[in-house]
């Protein structure tokens, strides 16, 4: 007899019995299914394999058996470490929840010298008192921000055009840094600005205090200027000049850019990517319009439907993949965030794709008048006259009253995707988010009916598309893994 034993001697599951671990499956196309486990690991399987798996008839000799066991879709009597590992991965996935709100948005002014038709919120008014945040309001909001237990506090200045109230930005930054002497958080600042009013004074201040800039760049000059009118029709020229100057002072990564898709952008996705490359960016974030603010009033939002936007998105994505294959590293940020959820144990903390929703507990908005909103989108809704998502005013409520309010807790609880009809058994749920504000804005309740949801349609198509592209082409899969791990 050999002193070595055969495999069967070490297989406590040789009877072919196994237990299913929590899993969901959704059709990828006519023949294939996507199966995901509770922490977002996925496998693409033929219909008959899913059938065998669910029926407990998948044989250990089937090549999929060890893959599905390794990915924690099933466990057998030979090993019980799977549950420990799933628990660990779940903790990793949800670790941000315990940190609570990290992003604190200060709307320092609603005034703006641009008049973009898609704008979520802005006022072209010189009435400083009416639409600027006061020092008293800023001071109180800052106190609330520091009550968050998050080890990272990111303070983002928004508008309108926040540089129109630059003295208040200086006031908040200096006060926050002073507070942080004793509290010692990882404190970050960013100004969301169109850069048209950028001055040396602003840049010097940003450099001295570690403030970053985030700007809008919608594409080449004609498209950008059509999307973003301002007196002089020079929004593009000012933005590009601002990016250049900002980089000279703050370094290349001191300024980032975001784009918004309008009707005029459709069909021009390659021009947009080329423009981002020309301006020295290594990524673009394809964003669709939200159903809020002036976008709705001016009918810009309705100017294209989800399927038109998806065509735009995938054309852009394929173009970017080609660029990468030809040696030009460039990332589409929305795909990268989703891929991180698909391919790594980590979550990204991107507010729109969180469940429980990110509203209030990942990001919160202090409006110019002291009203506190659960998200940027919800203050836009308020500008249209609906204050459903207003948690209260900084001058009237305590931290506990604001963050313990039903205004926040009810939409969080009701929209949790793990228990929402259709989401709860959707294979893509681990990648998706609960967006109660979107569904309230479009369907009148925090959950909405998913077959009518543009949010659902858009994200399902992207999840399917990304997985399909990885299945089709190993090189794309490698590229996507690198995006996911960034």
């Amino acid at each position: 007899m050999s002193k070595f034993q055969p495999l069967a001697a070490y297989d406590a599951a040789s009877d072919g019995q196994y237990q299913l671990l929590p899993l969901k499956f959704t059709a990828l196309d006519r023949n294939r299914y996507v199966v995901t486990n509770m922490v977002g690991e996925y496998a693409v399987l033929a219909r008959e394999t899913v059938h065998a798996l669910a029926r407990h008839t998948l044989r250990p000799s089937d090549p999929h058996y060890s893959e599905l066991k390794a990915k924690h879709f099933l466990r057998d009597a030979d090993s019980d470490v799977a549950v420990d590992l799933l628990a660990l991965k779940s903790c990793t996935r949800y670790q941000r929840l315990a940190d609570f709100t990290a992003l604190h948005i200060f709307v320092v002014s609603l005034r703006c010298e641009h008049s973009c038709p898609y704008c979520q919120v802005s006022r072209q008014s010189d009435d400083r008192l009416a639409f600027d945040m006061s020092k008293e309001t800023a001071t109180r909001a800052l106190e609330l921000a520091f009550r968050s237990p998050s080890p990272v506090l990111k303070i983002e200045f928004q508008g309108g055009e926040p540089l129109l109230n630059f003295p208040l930005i200086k006031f908040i930054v200096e006060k926050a840094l002073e507070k942080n002497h004793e509290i010692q958080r990882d404190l970050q600042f960013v100004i969301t600005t169109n850069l048209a009013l950028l001055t040396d004074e602003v840049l010097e201040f940003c450099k001295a205090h570690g403030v970053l800039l985030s700007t809008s760049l919608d594409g080449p000059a004609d498209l950008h200027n059509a999307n973003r009118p301002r007196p002089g029709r020079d929004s593009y020229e000012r933005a590009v000049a601002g990016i250049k100057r900002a980089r000279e002072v703050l370094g290349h990564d001191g300024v980032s850019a975001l784009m918004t898709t309008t009707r005029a952008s459709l069909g021009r996705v390659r021009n947009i990517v080329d423009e981002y490359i020309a301006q020295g960016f290594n990524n673009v974030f394809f964003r669709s319009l939200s159903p809020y603010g002036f976008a709705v009033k001016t009918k810009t939002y309705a100017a294209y439907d989800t399927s038109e936007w998806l065509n735009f998105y995938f054309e852009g994505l394929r173009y970017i993949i080609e660029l990468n294959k030809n040696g030009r590293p460039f990332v589409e940020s929305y795909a990268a965030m989703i891929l991180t959820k698909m391919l790594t144990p980590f979550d990204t903390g991107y507010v729109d794709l969180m469940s429980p929703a990110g509203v209030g507990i990942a990001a919160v908005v202090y409006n110019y008048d002291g009203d506190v909103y659960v998200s940027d989108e919800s203050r836009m809704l308020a500008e249209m006259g609906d204050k459903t998502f207003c948690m209260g005013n900084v001058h009237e409520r305590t931290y506990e009253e604001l963050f313990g309010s039903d205004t926040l807790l009810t939409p969080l609880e009701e929209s949790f995707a793990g228990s929402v009809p259709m989401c709860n058994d959707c294979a893509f749920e681990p990648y998706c988010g609960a967006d109660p504000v979107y569904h309230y804005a479009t369907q009148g309740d925090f959950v909405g009916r998913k077959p009518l949801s543009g949010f659902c349609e858009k994200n399902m198509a992207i999840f399917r598309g990304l997985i399909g592209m990885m299945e089709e082409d190993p090189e794309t899969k490698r590229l996507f893994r690198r995006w996911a791990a960034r």
Partner: protein
Amino acid sequence: MLTLNSRNVVLEGLAKGQRSMVLRLRQGGPEPLSLEQNEALFMQSGAAVGPGQTVLALERNANAAAHASGRIIVPDEFDYLGDGDVLAVELERPAVRVLYRRNSRHNSFLLTERCNHYCLMCSQPPKDINDDWIVDELFQAIPLISPETRSLGFTGGEPTLLGERFLRLVSVMREHLPATALHILSNGRRFVDPQFARAYAAIGHPDAMLGIPIYSASSQTHDHIVQADGAFDETVRGILNLKTCGQKVEIRVVVHQLNYAHLPVLAEFITRNLTFVDHVALMGLEMTGFAKANMDALWIDPVDYRQQLYEAAAVLQDFGLPTSIYNHQLCTIDRRIWPLAAKSISDWKNEYRLECLDCGVRERCGGFFATGRSRLSRHIRPMREN
């Protein structure tokens, strides 16, 4: 291949009464050196011997050492020895064993031959014997080792079977060789006990890494390869405990017939579940020890798992896990993962083939195990950089 042990030695004038002695060699010159208690003069022609000193001489230099008070005469193949090298001299047998070579980057100590694995491809087949003397000897040797040594290895057997004595050895390493990186080959199972993991962490060695094997993401396959039921679960939990204590862990995967097909699945398993490990080594089979006995079950030409090796390495690399490929000839692996291939075969085991003379990348190639000639890839051929 270097000769590290020999019984073909002559001992004269050495103190009796002990089983063995551990000595550090000093290179002699025209002026006599003053030697410490555990030092011997490495006899070169023209070197002066001080009174009462012990010398070690090659057979060809034996005459020059004639008047030393203690003499160790070894075969000429030990002429690679030099200043600072440490060896054990067994007085009864007699025999010499070279424990440490100061000029080598590949010094490692076998701590025990006992093991709770019985791996099908073990290059150092375990023995169930009492070999506590090995560690006794090491406690003597470690203080003699040059503190400038970059790195040292602990191997086995399974070092952690020594329990407390293993922990003490690591402490002694930290004490005497704080600047020396320590690499420990272990199956990690002992660390399933959180207290043991904490005790190991509490030593606070500044640069110790545990190299722990996982051969498959399937528990059955892993347990079969290591011939130990329940090993997979204990090893995985051991790694989790070590990382919970902030210790450095490397995962080592030897690739062969029984596990190559699911190598990419294992790579994904590591990135998903053990993403916090510090290094992953994908290793070729060394055709020695048990691997020879199980050759038919284990051998696969590396060219035939080229695709799986590439995919596994790509997965690990894409997710930013530091990854190396050991014991593979560059001509057998995908060009895209050449940058991961390390010259890993210990210098005393490394050889090249005739075909390699004309190869443009031989300088960065792993070469062959001198022990591995029984099986070779059919794809050994000269390569070019581009």
